[in-house]
């Protein structure tokens, strides 16, 4: 059963701050991870379409997608709506001040808005049934069940997985009459994606300029600045959220970006694999039909990043060789699953995915600058001071 494991917020005393700074100086973390090592991500899918629980260490986030018919805005008459609602009420620290709590939920909300709405990851035009009259409104509820740091990554993964897991009913609009088909009449339709964004969070301390990925709450509270980067699976930047007091130079940010881009790509692959596995289980009927409580229980079946992605690290090395195989192998199970009238629609999705995946090797981090050679470094540092100042100015604006 889930439980608010923290109860009292850590990282509020000088002793803790000093200790973590010292530990960071020696590149040590309390849970024994390396600076670039993340906690294991676990996905649990609910019985309903679009309900997912993501746990990242002790952090636990639940996302639920629902849909509804509505009228479009006048400015965008042929687009559906995507709305995100974040609730942090599940975490109530006994000694925390309400102010920090509000700030946290605002930050999380704005990050999710920028990652999923502003970057236009869901094809909203495909959600239009009748222009200016009827569109689908997709609502995503994000519930934070337990907070042990890095809410951002857990929430973005949860929202992405929930949106990808979600299916909406088919609908027709003829002679001014709207007809919604039940699941028995017509197969449910998945959402169309333009790209798949996920975020990665880094903490930076004054005592060591090396960024620490996937911070726990203690590390997050004692950090001098936090950088959140969202990338999609094509390694395009969707969101950058930087703040704090450490003078971060361009190199650090680029270093973060490079590893974040790889991590995001792996994460999206993981979500895809988990979805495939879940679908297979549903088809075979081996999946336990769990309710809301079952989702949060520890006994429920979890799809873990570490186990699912074990073989993937090797695959990445011969990416180009395996690519053709993967493309061929992927559509088959899904096509079998989605036989029926909306097969055309499914094919659309399928044709989208392989095409984009084939592009991958080409734009593979081409925009990311190479690590500057050590010989160039000293020359860079002397004119580097004005640069840093400019950075600070930027941060304040954000």
């Amino acid at each position, binding site marked *: 059963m889930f439980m608010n494991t923290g109860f009292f917020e850590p990282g509020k005393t*000088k002793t803790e701050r000093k200790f973590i700074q010292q530990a960071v100086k020696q590149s040590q973390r309390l849970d024994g991870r390396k600076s670039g090592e993340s906690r294991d991500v676990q996905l649990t899918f609910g019985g309903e379409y679009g309900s997912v629980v993501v746990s990242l260490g002790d952090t636990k986030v639940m996302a639920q997608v629902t849909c509804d018919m509505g009228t479009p805005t006048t400015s965008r008459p042929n687009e559906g709506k995507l709305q995100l609602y974040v609730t942090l009420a599940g975490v109530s620290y006994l000694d925390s001040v309400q102010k920090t709590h509000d700030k946290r939920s605002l930050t999380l909300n704005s990050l999710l808005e920028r990652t999923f709405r502003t970057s236009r990851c869901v094809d909203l035009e495909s959600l239009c049934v009748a222009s200016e009259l009827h569109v689908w409104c997709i609502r995503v509820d994000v519930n934070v069940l337990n907070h042990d740091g890095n809410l951002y990554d857990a929430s973005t993964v949860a929202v992405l997985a929930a949106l990808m897991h979600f299916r909406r009913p088919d609908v027709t609009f003829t002679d001014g009459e709207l007809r919604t088909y039940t699941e028995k009449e017509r197969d449910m339709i998945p959402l169309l994606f333009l790209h798949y964004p996920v975020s990665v969070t880094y903490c930076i301390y004054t005592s060591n300029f090396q960024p620490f990925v996937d911070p726990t709450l203690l590390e997050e509270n004692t950090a001098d600045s936090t950088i959140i980067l969202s990338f999609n699976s094509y390694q395009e930047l969707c969101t950058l959220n930087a703040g704090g007091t450490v003078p971060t130079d361009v190199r650090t940010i680029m270093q973060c970006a490079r590893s974040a881009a790889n991590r995001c790509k792996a994460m999206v692959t993981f979500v895809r694999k988990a979805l495939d596995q879940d679908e297979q289980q549903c088809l075979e009927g081996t999946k336990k039909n769990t309710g809301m409580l079952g989702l949060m229980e520890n006994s429920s079946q979890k799809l873990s990043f570490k186990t699912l992605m074990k073989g993937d690290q090797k695959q990445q090395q011969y990416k180009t060789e395996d690519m053709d195989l993967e493309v061929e192998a992927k559509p088959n199970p899904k096509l079998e699953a989605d036989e029926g009238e909306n097969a055309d629609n499914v094919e659309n999705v399928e044709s989208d995915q392989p095409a984009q995946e084939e592009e991958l090797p080409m734009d593979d981090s081409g925009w990311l600058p190479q690590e500057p050679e050590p010989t160039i470094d000293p020359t860079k540092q002397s004119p580097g001071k004005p640069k840093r100042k400019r950075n600070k100015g930027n941060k304040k604006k954000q």
Partner: protein
Amino acid sequence: MDSSNAIVMPGERITIIEEVAKEKRVILGPGLRRLDDTVVASKAGPLRHKEPGTYWIDNYQRRYVPARGDLVLGIIKGKAGDQYRVDIGSADIASISYLAFEAATKKNRPDLNPGDIIYARVLNASADIEPELVCVNSNGKRGKLGLLADGFFFKCTLNLGRLLLRENCPALAALTRELPYEIAIGVNGRIWVKANSLRETMALSNAILTMEQAGYTEIDKICDSLGDVLQA
């Protein structure tokens, strides 16, 4: 101490104690209360007994309820008049007077800032007024109380704090065999540790946190693995 695992639930009438009470005086500890001639549990958990006649319920709880004489770890939150406001994890924020430190006078005030940790004793605890702390004993000496500098500080459940403080608990002794360390345990579920090096402090705090789930038999195992980790 009798560690029989009789679990009682709130509202349950406990006849064992009533039997004993007929012959001798009994003391009802936390989680037990007397209703006329009966003894009733008000919390859930295993019923504990200590000779000659003390009974209490060892219930799992994370909110600290202050009691007079408790040793607690508090975080300084700020200054208010001639008092410091201290967070001890109770419903109310506690207070400690400037004069409640060793050798403190009106002129010679202790130098404490928000975020500092102090080890203090609860002087006054009543349901209706905020708890009051003190950092000296009745002779005006500080003893082990006062500001705790360096080291590492973490919060845990009340049970872990009580478990470590139990007279016959082998945990602290077993840890002493592995490494030298300083520790301050507050019954309000807060622990401060300090070992020679950062690495040792880290390992120590992790070991202590794992002990919560462990039985007495597993404590030796944890300490062994702690020794292995430190030697590697």
